[in-house]
C-alpha cells in the first residue's frame, strides 16, 4: 500500500472546526446518537459489575439483586485465597512490567537510534508477538515447559508475561526515539560528555515518559491476562484465574468489589497521566 498519508495539519488550527461549515446537521446528530449508544452498550456490563459489588446478597453467591450495602467493601479481603490470588497477580505484574520495561527499552532505543543487521528480523518477531493469538503463545510456552520438564508456576507466568510485553514497550519507546532531536545529544557530546553520560543525562530523561507508558501498558497487560496465564500457571492461581475457577460455583461479591476498585484505580491513573501529558505539552 502506498503512503497516501497526507501531512497532518497543525493541531493548533482546530481542523475539525474548519470542516464544520459543510457538515450536515442530520447526519451528525444521527452519528452522535449512534456513538453514544455504542458507548452505553460498552458500559452496561461494567455498570452491572459495580452495582453487584453493592448487592446485599445473603449467601456466598451474587446473582440476584437483594438491596444496597457497603458491607462487601469492608469484607474485601475475607476470602483468603482470592486475596492471595490478587497479590500473586500484582507481584507478577510489577516484576514482569519492570523487566519488560528494561528489555523493551533496549530494543526500542536500538531500533529507533541505529541501523544494524538483524533489525528487520527483530521487527518481524516483534510484529509476530504482537499479532499472534494469545492462545498460540500460551500453548507453545506450555509445550516448551512440558518438553523440558521445567514445571510451572509463578516463574513461568512471569516469563510469559515479559515475553508478550517486550514488543509493546519496544514499539512505544522506538516511536519516541525516532522523533528525538539528535542535535541535543550532539551538543552534549561537543561539551565533552561521554556517550554514557549523554545517554543518562540527556537522552533517557527525554524518552522516560515513553518508557513509563510502556511499563504501564505492560502492567495492565499482565494483571488482566487470562489466556497465556492459564497455560503457564500450573497450580498457581492469579486473580483472573481465580475468577475463572470460581464462576463454576458462583462468584462471591468480593470479586465485584475488587473489580470495581481495579477499574477505579485504572481510570484514575489514566485520567491523571492524560492531564499531566497535556499540561506537559502546553508548558
Amino acid at each position, binding site marked *: 500500500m502506498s503512503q497516501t498519508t497526507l501531512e497532518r495539519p497543525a493541531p493548533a488550527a482546530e481542523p475539525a472546526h474548519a470542516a464544520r461549515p459543510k457538515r450536515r446537521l442530520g447526519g451528525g446528530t444521527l452519528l452522535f446518537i449512534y456513538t453514544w449508544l455504542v458507548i452505553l452498550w460498552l458500559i452496561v456490563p461494567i455498570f452491572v459489575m459495580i452495582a453487584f459489588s453493592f448487592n446485599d446478597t445473603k449467601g*456466598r453467591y451474587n*446473582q440476584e439483586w437483594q438491596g444496597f450495602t457497603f458491607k462487601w467493601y469492608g469484607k474485601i479481603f475475607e476470602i483468603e485465597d482470592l486475596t492471595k490470588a490478587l497479590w500473586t497477580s500484582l507481584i507478577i505484574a510489577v516484576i514482569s512490567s519492570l523487566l519488560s520495561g528494561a528489555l523493551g527499552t533496549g530494543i526500542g532505543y536500538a531500533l529507533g537510534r541505529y541501523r544494524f543487521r538483524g533489525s528487520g528480523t527483530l521487527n518481524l518477531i516483534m510484529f509476530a508477538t504482537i499479532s499472534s493469538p494469545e492462545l498460540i503463545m500460551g500453548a507453545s510456552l506450555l509445550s516448551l515447559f512440558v*518438553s523440558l*520438564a521445567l514445571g*510451572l*508456576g509463578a516463574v513461568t507466568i512471569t516469563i510469559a508475561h515479559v515475553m508478550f510485553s517486550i514488543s509493546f514497550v519496544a514499539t512505544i519507546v522506538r516511536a519516541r526515539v525516532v522523533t528525538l532531536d539528535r542535535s541535543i545529544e550532539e551538543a552534549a557530546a561537543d561539551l565533552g560528555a561521554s556517550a554514557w553520560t549523554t545517554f543518562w543525562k540527556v537522552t533517557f530523561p527525554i524518552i522516560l515518559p515513553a518508557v513509563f507508558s510502556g511499563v504501564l501498558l505492560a502492567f495492565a497487560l499482565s494483571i488482566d491476562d487470562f489466556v497465556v496465564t492459564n497455560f503457564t500457571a*500450573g*497450580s498457581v492461581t492469579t486473580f483472573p484465574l481465580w475468577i475463572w475457577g470460581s464462576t*463454576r*460455583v458462583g462468584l462471591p461479591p468480593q470479586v465485584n468489589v475488587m473489580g470495581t476498585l481495579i477499574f477505579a484505580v485504572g481510570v484514575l491513573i489514566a485520567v491523571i497521566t492524560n492531564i499531566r501529558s497535556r499540561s506537559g505539552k502546553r508548558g
Partner: protein
Amino acid sequence: MSANISDPSLLRGMTQRRFGRRDALRLSGLAGLGAALAACGVQGKGTPGASAAPDAVEKFWAGKAKTNKIDFANWPLYMDPKHPELKKFTAETGIEVNYQEVIQEMGPWFAKVQPQLAAGQSIGYDLMVITNSFQFSQFRDSGFLAPLDHSKLPNYTKNADPAYAKEAFDPGNVYSVPWASGMTGIAYDPDKVGRKLTKLADLWDPAFKGKVGMFSDTQELGNFGLLALGIDPAKSTSDDWQKAADHLKEQKKAGIVRKYYDQSYVDALGKGEVWITQAWSGDIFQKNLSENRNFEFFVPEEGGTIWTDNMTIPITAKAPVDAITLIDFFYRTDVAATLAEYINYVAPVPSAKEQIIKDAAKLSGADKTAMEAIANSKLVFPSAAEYAKLHYYVSFEAASEQQAFQKTFEPIVLG
C-alpha cells in the same frame, strides 16, 4: 513385575527427566521414558498390595517431619463452608489447614499439576481428593502419589468400611483412602419440568431441548451413554463405546444438550440454564439446603454409577506427616458423622450412621427430623436396592484402551 510397576520410587525415577544437553537440543521432551514402561505393556494392572509397599513406604516417610501447616485441595460442596471439622482438627493438633476448593473435574486437575509433579516440584498442596477415574491411574502410574503409611492411620484401620480396601482402583488402599463415595444420577427442577422424572431416557426427551446438562468428563458422559442403551459400563467393550457415543451424538445433534459441564452444572441448574442434568448425589442436597431450593435428585431406573473420591498425598508434598494425620482424623466416627451430615455423600465410616442417629436424638423439632432424614437417606447410606441400580466405572486394562475410550467420547464434549 507388578511389584516393580507399583513401586513409586522406581516409577518416579523413570518418569522424572534426567536433564541433559541432548535432551535440551532435541526438545522432544517426555520421550524415551515411555520405553521402559511400554516394554512391560502394563499400566497399573496387578495388585499394588503389600508386596511393593513396605520398602516404598519406608523410603518415602523416612525423615519426614511435622510442619504444622497443610494445604488441602478439594472439590467444591465437599465440606461445610465454615469448615467445622478443620477447626476442630487445628484446635486438637495445632496444625493449620489451608482448605481450597480448587478441583472441579479430574482431567483439568491432572493436566494442571502433571507438569509440576513430573518436574518434581511441589504443587502447593499436601493433600488432594481425587476420584477413582482413569486420572487416578494416571496419577498412580506416573508415580505421583505417596504410598500411605498405614501405621499412621489407626482410625482408618479401626473404622473404615472394609469394602473399600477391595476396590479395584487401589486394592489395599496403598495410595489412597476414601473421602466419600457418591452416585452419579440425574437432578432436575420440578417447577420447570412439570412432572416426575425417573428415567435416564428423560435426558433424551426433546421436550427439554436446550435445557439438558451433561457432564464433560468423558467417563461420566460415556457411562450414561452406555447405561441408556442398557449396557453395564464395567463390562463394556469398545464396540459398546461407539454405540454409546452415537447415542450421545444424536442427543447433541437434536439440540437437546445445552452444554457439557464440570462442577458448574450446579450453578447452571440454579440459574435455570438447565432444567435437567447429570448430577452428583450430595451436591443437590447441599444446593437445596444452602439456597432454599427444591431440586430433585434420583438414580435412574436404567442405572447410575457409583464412584469414590479419595484422599491422596502428592509425592512432592511438603507436609505429608501433617496430611496423613488429617486423613486419619476424618476417620474418627464423630468427624465422619458431622461431615456426612453436611455433605450428604456416602461416608466410608459405617459407624457414622449410629453417630448421626445419636446426634439426632439430642435435637428436637425440625432439626431432629432433618437429621434423621440424613441418617435414613438413601444418598448417604444407600440401601441394597439402591446399590443394585449402581454400576462401577468402565475399567481399563491398558493405557491404550483408556485412550481409545477417551477418543471415542471426547469429540462429543468438544464438538
